[in-house]
């Protein structure tokens, strides 16, 4: 094999397939020029190794930040495999319990051919049904909480408005009373003045 067909750098960098690597090794043993080239590549790598790796001046670390933490539904979604496994386990236990504890049955039924595809489909259906139910329940609870909070706010506002209205009415009545008294005083004073004349 001629030197031109040899991928000496690929060999040096450990990127050749096994057969090609063996061919190159055989060539290098027989070719002085390629051996010398390989030595120069080795010397280059040794020189590069003289450049030391450095430690970062400061350690990089992160603290918990609510902004970056996943929401409850994201955690719920990412826990899919665990949830699926747990649901499958519950379902398997339920099936077994049903089989063993069924009234009138003292011994397990004779062995039957297991339809794994049907069981898998059933498990899958059960998991997705529960997932859907959990999401719907959470959404309904959230909506109910929101409605209750809105109703409480409206009631509080109505109470405050009524108190303010009562206070305003009282103030108006007091002012009117004061005006009436002043008008009476003025009327009496003018009558006395007219009587003396």
């Amino acid at each position: 094999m001629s030197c031109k067909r040899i991928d000496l750098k690929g060999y040096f960098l450990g990127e050749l397939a096994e057969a090609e690597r063996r061919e190159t090794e055989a060539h290098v043993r027989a070719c002085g020029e390629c051996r010398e080239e390989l030595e120069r590549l080795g010397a280059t790598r040794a020189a590069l190794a003289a450049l030391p790796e450095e430690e970062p001046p400061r350690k990089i670390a992160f603290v918990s930040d609510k902004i970056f933490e996943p929401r409850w539904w994201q955690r719920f979604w990412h826990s899919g495999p665990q949830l699926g496994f747990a649901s499958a386990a519950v379902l398997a236990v339920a099936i077994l319990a049903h089989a063993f504890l069924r009234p009138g049955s003292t011994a397990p039924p004779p062995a039957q051919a297991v339809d794994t595809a049907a069981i898998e489909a059933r498990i899958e259906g059960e998991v997705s049904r529960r997932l859907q139910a959990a999401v719907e329940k959470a959404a309904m609870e959230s909506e109910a909480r929101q409605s209750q909070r809105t109703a409480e706010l409206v009631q509080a506002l109505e109470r405050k408005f009524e108190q303010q209205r009562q206070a305003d009415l009282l103030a108006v009545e007091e002012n009117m009373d004061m005006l009436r008294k002043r008008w009476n005083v003025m009327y009496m004073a003018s009558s006395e003045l007219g009587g003396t004349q």
Partner: protein
Amino acid sequence: MIFREAEDSDLIQGARRGKVEAYNVLVSRWERRVYNYLLRLVGDREDALDLAQEVFLKAYQSLGKLHDASRFAPWLFRIAHNEAFSHLRRRRPDTDAPAEPAQPLRGPRLLPVELSLAVESALARLTAEQREAVLLKIFQGFKFEEIAEALDCPVSTVKSRVYTALDLLKESLAPMDRRGVE
């Protein structure tokens, strides 16, 4: 290596569920490699540290997009590559091509000084793409396929960059290394 990958996968799963401590462990495993890659590309320690922090923050925010946890390393270095080249373009906005670190590293050096200087100088003469290819192949030990994944380019391009860079480095460093050894 297999055990290490499995552990990283566990940490990634933990971080996806919001466990920041799991992510911090992952960061402590990779920060040195990412920092040194960035340092050799941008040539400044403070810039490299800032970029490394940005890389790990973006990685944390994008963990949901990492479909295969065993590809974490090339995925992480892809983010690092994007950050580094954005930084280089910002530093030299007047040129289309990514800039090179103009000067050797600032700050204290480790012995042997002469050899370190020669290596830094030889690396600085490469284009940013060639230098990056050498960093990922020689210093970080990635396979060509992984580098291609990180840089989003064909394997043939990676191979060409590494081979050209090796030829250029060999011209400067092989004789220099012999002198140093003698």
